[in-house]
């Protein structure tokens, strides 16, 4: 296996992610995976990989890397001022790089997380059927941790592209988010204030990471007499947890069980948007029924499939 990239400066703790570790949650091993799975998938399709290959997830401040082998790369997601050998280079497009090239990313100016894909996929070992890093569990990715200067990223076997690929539009991430959410699983503890929650705007706090996004805004109050903590039970990604201070937290992919009530759950078709929220962005939650959520999931699935067809034009993708 060839080393494709050497990290010269890590930026803000990038991690290797794929589509997550779905089957080990009964052991407390979290889902993990790319928080914006759309940008992750597109990065892979742009370099000829299947959606399940591992990419590098970079949050707010990107790394500087030396290219060690001829590969195709693509950077998607947050606008991070990609530069190749000092010159500005486009994101959402494939770029052929060669040994000795220098790839640099800066501070995110739109969105929060960027994804770097390498043809053949980042070939760190699979742990429990996934290459995703869980910082909480200290597993996956490169030794279960964020990357540091000096780390080498291996690439799997994958042919180089016959012709470059480009997403014909550039996604922009709004600073006012509208997230569709299904009430529950503890909406019965918030009967008095459920409408308030859905009417109000909240702000993403800087205290956010891969575990969850803390929100600030109007206090979300439990009903009189409702318990402030519950007997611990499983949680889903996107659950809007309300701790005792009444300031909600959108739980992401690093927790399997929780002990605080959750007023609502962001629908799966909107979860990627949370991954691109920046500190200071505003958010409003809109209530939808489970049936509406299911339709949104189906539409989102169709949109992903259409994007894949557009980028791959029916060519086979590298399996990782």
């Amino acid at each position, binding site marked *: 296996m060839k080393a494709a990239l050497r990290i010269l400066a890590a930026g803000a703790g990038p991690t290797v992610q794929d589509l997550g570790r*779905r089957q*080990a949650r009964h*052991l407390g091993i979290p889902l993990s995976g790319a928080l914006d799975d759309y940008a992750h998938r597109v990065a892979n399709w742009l370099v000829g990989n299947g959606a399940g290959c591992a990419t590098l997830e970079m949050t707010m401040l990107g790394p500087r890397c030396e290219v060690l082998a001829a590969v195709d790369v693509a950077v998607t997601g947050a606008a991070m001022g990609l530069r190749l050998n000092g010159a500005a280079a486009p994101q959402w497009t494939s770029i052929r790089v060669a040994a000795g090239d220098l790839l640099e990313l800066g501070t995110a100016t739109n969105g929060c997380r960027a994804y770097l894909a390498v043809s053949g996929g980042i070939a760190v070992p699979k742990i429990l059927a996934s290459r995703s890093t869980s910082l909480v569990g200290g597993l996956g990715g490169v030794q279960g941790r964020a990357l540091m200067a000096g780390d080498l990223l291996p690439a799997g076997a994958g042919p180089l592209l016959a012709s470059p690929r480009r997403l014909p539009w550039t996604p922009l991430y709004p600073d006012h988010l509208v997230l569709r959410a299904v009430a529950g699983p503890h909406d019965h503890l918030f009967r008095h204030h459920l409408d308030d929650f859905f009417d109000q705007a909240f702000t993403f706090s800087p205290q956010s990471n891969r575990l969850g996004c803390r929100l600030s805004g109007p206090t979300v109050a439990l009903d009189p007499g409702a318990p402030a903590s519950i007997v611990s039970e*499983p949680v889903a990604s996107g*659950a809007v947890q309300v701790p005792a201070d009444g300031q909600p937290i959108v739980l992401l992919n690093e927790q399997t069980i929780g002990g605080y009530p959750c007023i609502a759950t962001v629908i*799966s078709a909107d979860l990627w948007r949370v991954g691109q929220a920046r500190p200071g962005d505003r958010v409003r939650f809109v209530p939808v029924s489970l049936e509406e*959520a299911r339709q949104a999931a189906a539409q989102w699935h169709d949109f992903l499939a259409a994007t894949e067809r557009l980028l791959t034009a029916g060519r086979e993708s590298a399996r990782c």
Partner: protein
Amino acid sequence: MDERDMLGASLFATVRFRIGGDRMLLADYGQGVDPAVNERVRRMAALVNGTGHPAIEAVVPAYCTLAIHYNPLATDPETLMHLLRDLEQHLESAAVPEPAVIDIPVCYGGAFGPDLEAVASHNHLSSDEVIRLHSHGRYRVYAIGFSPGFCYLGGLDPRLATPRLTTPRLRVAAGSVGIGGDQTGVYPLASPGGWQLIGRTPLSLFVPQRDRPVLYQAGDSIRFRPISAEMFARLAAEARP
């Protein structure tokens, strides 16, 4: 009427469902910390796993609740509720393996258990009595979570209950055995922590590369077996890859 009003028993007559977004269905079989409720959750988890249903991604048991994580493009909650009700009807006759009993060797006190004496003096016991009471208990694994392999154990002798540290430690070594309030448990990974540490196991509770990454499942029981420092060193050396 509050659905959660109970008439004495904590086991529900029949399952109650809750919605956790469009990818998770929660099935409640009772309430509180109760071995009978948790046993029903455990048996239901085994039955659901046994179906091998292709739309079910993960089955996660906890104290009173079973979570079914599913693919919303491949099934819907009504279908899953029907499946769970159906399985529950055959719960009594279904063959489900008994929960396992796992022995965990623990070297109590000394450098491994810096808070053993604090737990003893808080409860007006000697250190030896703390060790005796703690290692005579049988602890049910009510749930696994919070971090990989971390088990929520029930069954701590109330005579050992001790408040958490006022200032949590920044780093607790993997394998540390502690008491926090009326709970006891083992830290599978090094992490910050506020429990009173009374000992340490040389076993690696969580090894992601192992065939069975975690040694126990929810519903199993754990016993702590006191060992000497010499035995600790020997077992720790054997456990090393």
